[in-house]
Each structure stands twice: as structure tokens, then as C-alpha cells.
């Protein structure tokens, strides 16, 4: 067992910012807008770092797919305790069309390349709300998946997981290697403090391209139009 955990982190528009649709309706305005790490990815990083602190795993590798600025998101993960980072460089039109299927293929390829024992992801991203990447990655790797995790404990080569589902809490046991996606109550992420950000500058981030991993990022989906939600109409009693 390599004891290596891959954590996916996504750079998204900060949750407190008011989103604005581009005048040409092709997407939302991102230029200059405040971005931060997807809150569920923060929880995933925290869980990975906790496992390392408990000495249950040996290394945490943070991965992000996106343009140059995604490196800032990886740096935050490094400041929280990840050991090294992999930046999968996707920019321009490819980045605008990047979705869960391509990201899952990238993560699956990286998992094989890095001999990962565990993949920790957020349950969904707050910009697209897809909630698909974890599940697709597990399917591509033919690994078990524990999604919406609110409790994770390692028991030998198995994982005990509590899942938050509509009906209540589901307790399952899965084999490793596995994919886990983090839900809100899994933990409270630590702050990336300034001394850790300074130390993180010395940790390595390697940049690769999807083609290096044998992944084609062409999208099978075409965005036709992005619109503001309709104005709320007054109710009638």
C-alpha cells in the first residue's frame, strides 16, 4: 500500500460574490472576480490531512485542473498540510468546457500514475452543483465509492463510512482503494495560516497537461445559453 491520498481541489467563484451573467449569455463573468477553494474541497483536504496526522496514510497530493490561477488553490491546500501538488493545465475554451467527465478521466489517470490508495473529493462544486466527479472517477477505476461522507474511519484495508442520505445516516464498509466524497459535516477545515502559506511556497507543484495523461478534454456537451434566473413574481393569496 502506497499510503498515498489524492485530493481534488477546485477553484470556484467565492460563495459570497454576486454572480453576473456575461452580456453575450455565454457564461458568467469571472475576470477579476474573487475566487476561492470550493468549500467541500476544503473539507476533503482537511480530512486527508487529519488522516496523515493520525499516521493512517503517508502522503497527501493536491490536484487541481484549470488555468494558471489554479496553482493558488493548490498552494492553499499545501498550506493546510498537503505534501505536494499537481496542476493539470487546462485553459481558455477547454477550461470553459471542462466538466466532471473529463476531470474524472484525469483523476483516474493520476490515481494510476501516483499509485493512490484513496481519492478524496468534495461532494460537489458550488459553481456547477454537478455532484458527479466522485462517482464517475470510481466507475472509471472500478473502485468502491463512499459519497456524502460525514464520518470516515480506516480499519485495516477497509473503510467505515457514514453517509448522509435523505432517509438518515447510512453506515457502510468499503474496500480500498476507494473514492470518498466529503459532505458538510465531515469536519471543520483548518485555516491556512501565514507561516504555513510561507512554508507552502517551498513545497513542489508539478504542472502537467491532460494529453500527458492520455486524456482528451473535448467536451461532449455544448452550452447553448446562460441566463439570469427569472425575476421573482409576487405571490397571490
Amino acid at each position, binding site marked *: 500500500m502506497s499510503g498515498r491520498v489524492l485530493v481534488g481541489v477546485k477553484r470556484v467563484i467565492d460563495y*459570497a460574490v454576486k454572480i453576473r451573467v456575461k452580456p453575450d449569455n455565454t457564461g458568467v463573468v469571472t475576470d477579476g*472576480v474573487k475566487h476561492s477553494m470550493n468549500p467541500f474541497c476544503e473539507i476533503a483536504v482537511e480530512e486527508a490531512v487529519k488522516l496523515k496526522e493520525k499516521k493512517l496514510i503517508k502522503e497527501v497530493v493536491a490536484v487541481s485542473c484549470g488555468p494558471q490561477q489554479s496553482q493558488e488553490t493548490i498552494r492553499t491546500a499545501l498550506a493546510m498540510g498537503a505534501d505536494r501538488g499537481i496542476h493539470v493545465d487546462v485553459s481558455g475554451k477547454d477550461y470553459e468546457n471542462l466538466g466532471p467527465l473529463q476531470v474524472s478521466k484525469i483523476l483516474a489517470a493520476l490515481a494510476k500514475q501516483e499509485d493512490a490508495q484513496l481519492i478524496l473529493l468534495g461532494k460537489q462544486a458550488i459553481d456547477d452543483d454537478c455532484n458527479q466527479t466522485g462517482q464517475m472517477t470510481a466507475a472509471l477505476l472500478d473502485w468502491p465509492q463512499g459519497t456524502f461522507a460525514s464520518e470516515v474511519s480506516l480499519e485495516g484495508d477497509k473503510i467505515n463510512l457514514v453517509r448522509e442520505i435523505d432517509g438518515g445516516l447510512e453506515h457502510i464498509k468499503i474496500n480500498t482503494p476507494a473514492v470518498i466524497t466529503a459532505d458538510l459535516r465531515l469536519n471543520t477545515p483548518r485555516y491556512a495560516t*501565514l507561516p504555513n502559506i510561507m512554508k507552502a511556497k517551498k513545497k513542489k507543484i508539478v504542472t502537467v497537461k491532460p494529453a500527458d495523461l492520455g486524456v482528451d478534454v473535448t467536451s461532449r456537451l455544448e452550452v447553448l445559453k446562460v441566463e439570469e434566473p427569472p425575476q421573482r413574481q409576487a405571490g397571490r393569496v
Partner: protein
Amino acid sequence: FITPLALVLSDTHLKSVEMERFADEADVVIVGGGPAGLAAAIRLKQLANKHEKELRVCLVEKAPQIGAHTLSGACLEPSALTELIPDWKERGAPLNTPVTEDVFSILTEKYRIPVPILPGLPMQNHGNYIVRMGNLVRWLGEQAEELGVELYPGYAAAEVLFHEDGSVKGIATNDVGIAKDGSPKDIFERGMELHAKVTLFGEGCHGHLAKQLYNKFNLRENCEPQTYAIGLKELWMIDEKKWRPGRVEHSVGWPLDRNTYGGSFLYHLNEGEPLVALGFVVGLDYTNPYLSPFREFQRWKHHPFVAPTLEGGQRIAYGARALNEGGCQSIPKLTFPGGLLIGCSPGFMNVPKIKGTHTAMKSGMLAAEAIFPKLTAETLDSETAGLHVPEYAENLKNSWVWKELYAVRNIRPSFHNYFGLYGGMIYTGIFYWIFRGKEPWTLKHCGTDANQLKPAKECTPIEYPKPDGKISFDLLSSVALSGTNHEGDQPPHLTLKDDSIPVARNLGIYDGPEQRFCPAGVYEYVPLDTGNGMRLQINAQNCVHCKTCDIKDPSQNINWVVPEGGGGPAYNGM
């Protein structure tokens, strides 16, 4: 008044909390990533590279990214920028809109009196650029990083550190992970200490660390109190047919009365889309506690000269910030052992020109140039004492910054006469336009802004129109557009020295002016649950870090301290 750390120390969780702070050393630490701080950082590194010396320059900034807390009109005079980075155009500085049209008006409720802008009047804008200051600051940040400055956005300087001899040793960032009640959460982490040979404080208008430094080093004993204004701003995407790129409009008069200083600006940017920056400034020496700068701004937009530009348009951003108006009468002592004050913090704004960025940047550059030879001198011994660099203040007095501020020193105070605005304009016309500020006297301000409010019973409430939702808007939807947010579970950063004063004094005598002057709806007087009486509710999460409350509170009871770094507005090119 209890600091969050003091509350932590008194908590029983103390045993499990690691109290030692991690410390690191730099040559220079700069507090604040605005035009002054970044200009100083860039100048330091330019000098270091030129003389082949190693210099570690660290800059801390409370905004989550450089530029996110920057808010300004703005018409930039590029003089200081050209001195700092002569090839700014080739390097892609976002100065894309030269001023092409300059219009000044006196507004009445229905009409507009055009005022010719004669050459030589301070508000003439030939040669200047309309800029989105947040974007310029972001670009300055990139230039600084390229030169090797270590930028740390998202980290707020919360405490000044001192050597045993009382000189400044550096700063410490705030402790994070403290709950609302002051107890440490599981994720509690102590802040970090950054030690430096010399620390530059560039916190912008009314900085909170500067406040402490004024007291500690008696920096204000020979100058007048600073006077301020609040500036509110919006960005609008307008109908293309109304768009006149490069057009600058300023007005005074309606909706303010002749004894309340203030006016409006409206600038047509030229960056490929019909974007307009507009806003309203109100002097904080206003006397009527019923005045609401926000609502004056919203009703000004309905003026027949203004509304047509906005009709059919969409508001995309909102924000507010205090600005200083004291001019050279209010500039404090600028240096003290271990530190210097730069930018709008001591306050170099040229009020009639409505420009302070060029002087702020120049002050940063002068600070860097004064510090550099002392930093690299062989005889330096900084282990136990911070560097004192009084040369900075002397150089500033001999520079164009001082000449410029001296010439306009009497314009703002000349407003304090029976004829108010009109008396001020006449004074400006005679003494500035003709005599260029050479008159041998220097007018005084009339004291601190906080002392200017009259009791509510001596004043008439103002009837403001309801917002129409198309041109004017309510406060809460405006605050939402600032993108402001703070981690909810932290002690409120708007602290009260005495909890009983708001209801007894602010509400009792002045009818709670903070409900009206806060541009973010932080202060609300709500009925007590028991039904008899009111209490002050502080919605700290809404704060946009404008500092107006700290300035205008008639009881001077509100003390703004810095919240956890990364919180506050998320302005984009404001």
C-alpha cells in the same frame, strides 16, 4: 473594552492552546496593499536590484486578493506612476480611458447650472485617465511580485510589535478561529509575527493601527485633527446609446444643502463595454444626524441631468469608503522609531482635485528612497531597535506633494462660512485661481467630524424618496453587490468601548446617526425582547471596511478593529 485575545486568555480552554507565536524576519514590512504600499514595495525592490543588494520585502493586506478592498472614483493623474514605472503603457497598466470631456455643474432640484472649468482650476482633468482603481492596484501587485516582493493578501496586520526601547519591531497578524463569544474553536491558530528593520504603515484612510501609533508616539500634537468624507460608488453597465467614453462629470449642490460639503462624480470608462463609474461624496462634518449619505446618493441619481444616462442600464457593483479631506493642516508627524506612515493613512489627498492616489504613490516612493540607504548601511544594528528615518518627512516637505497640497490648503476650510458652498467657490475663484494659494494665512478646520453633529431635537428629519428599484435601490440589495462577507463565528470587529453609550447617548441625543451613516447597514436599533427600550444590533458581517463609523460616531465609542483576514468586500475593479 476587551480584545478577542484577552477573552481567549481568560478561557478555560487555555491549556490546550499553543500561545507562542511563530516569528519571521524581513528587512521591510509593509502594512496595506494599496497604491502607497505597493509603490513603496516596488521602489524598494527597484533600488535593491539597481544596487545589487538583497532585500526581503513582505507586504500584508487584509483583502482576500490585492485590489479587492480598493475603491476610488477615479481620475488618475499619472505623474507618480510615470515616475515609478516609466514604461507602464508597454507593461499593460490598465489606464485605458484618457479624459476627453470635463463637465462641472451646480445642481438644483430640477436644473443644472454649468460651470466653466477654466484652465488652472484644480478640477481640470486634461492629461488624466479614468481608471478602475482596483484593476490598477491589482496590476501594481503583479509588478511588485515580478520584482520579488512577497505579497500576502488575506492576512490582516492586527497588532504593532515593539522593541524594549519602544521602537516598532514589526506587526502580528490576527489570531484566527475565535468564536463569537471569545472562546477558542478547535481550529484556533495564533497569528504570526513579522519582524522588520522598519515597518511602513499604508492602511489607507483612518487606519486602525495608525490610530494606535498616533497615541503611542504623539504624532498628532502639532497638526489639526483629520477631517473626512464618505464616498459611495456604483458601477453601471449602461445603454450603448448613452455611452460617451472619456467623459467626466462632477457636480455640487442638490441634493445637499449649501452647508453640507459634498458632490457627485460620473465617469464614462472606455474598456470595450459601456461601463460607467458614478458616486457621491458627503463631507463627514455634516451637522444633521438625520442625514443619510447613502440615501442622498440614491436620490441624486434621479436628477434630470443624471437619470437619463442610467435609464435602461444595469447596476453591477456597489461599495463605499471614507476619504480624508484635511489636507496639509492635518498631516501628522510621519516618522517614528521603526516606522513610517504613507498614503491616505496620514492623508495626502488634494481635495479640490479629488485626487489622492498620485500623492499616495509618491509618498510610498519617497519612503522607499529614504529608507533604502539606511537599510543597506554597514553600521546598521537592528536587533533591538527599529530604524528611524526622519529624512522621509523632510523629503516629502521638499517634493511636489507638499507644494501641491499647500497651494490648495485653504479651499476646503473656506467652505465654513455663512454662504457655505457658494462662499467656498468664491474663495477658490479668487484665492486659488488668481493667487494660486499664495495667500499668507492658513485657514483652520472646525474640529473633529465627530463633534459636528447637532442634537436630533435641533434638526429636521429628511424625507427621502423610496427607491424605485430601477435607478435607486435599497441598502441591503446594495450591500449584497459589494460581495462583502465575514466568517460568521468570530467576535464582531466593530467594538464598543462602553456598551451603555449607544442607547443612552447616540440614540438618546442624536437619534442613532450610525443607522444612517453606515453604508452597509451594520448598525440597527431594534426593540429589546422585553419590549421596553432599544438595543444596538451590530451586523458585523455586512461591514465594507469604510471606517465611517469610527470617524463619525459622536461619542467616539465605536472602535473598528481588523477582522480575520480575507473578510470584507470583494470589489472587482472599483
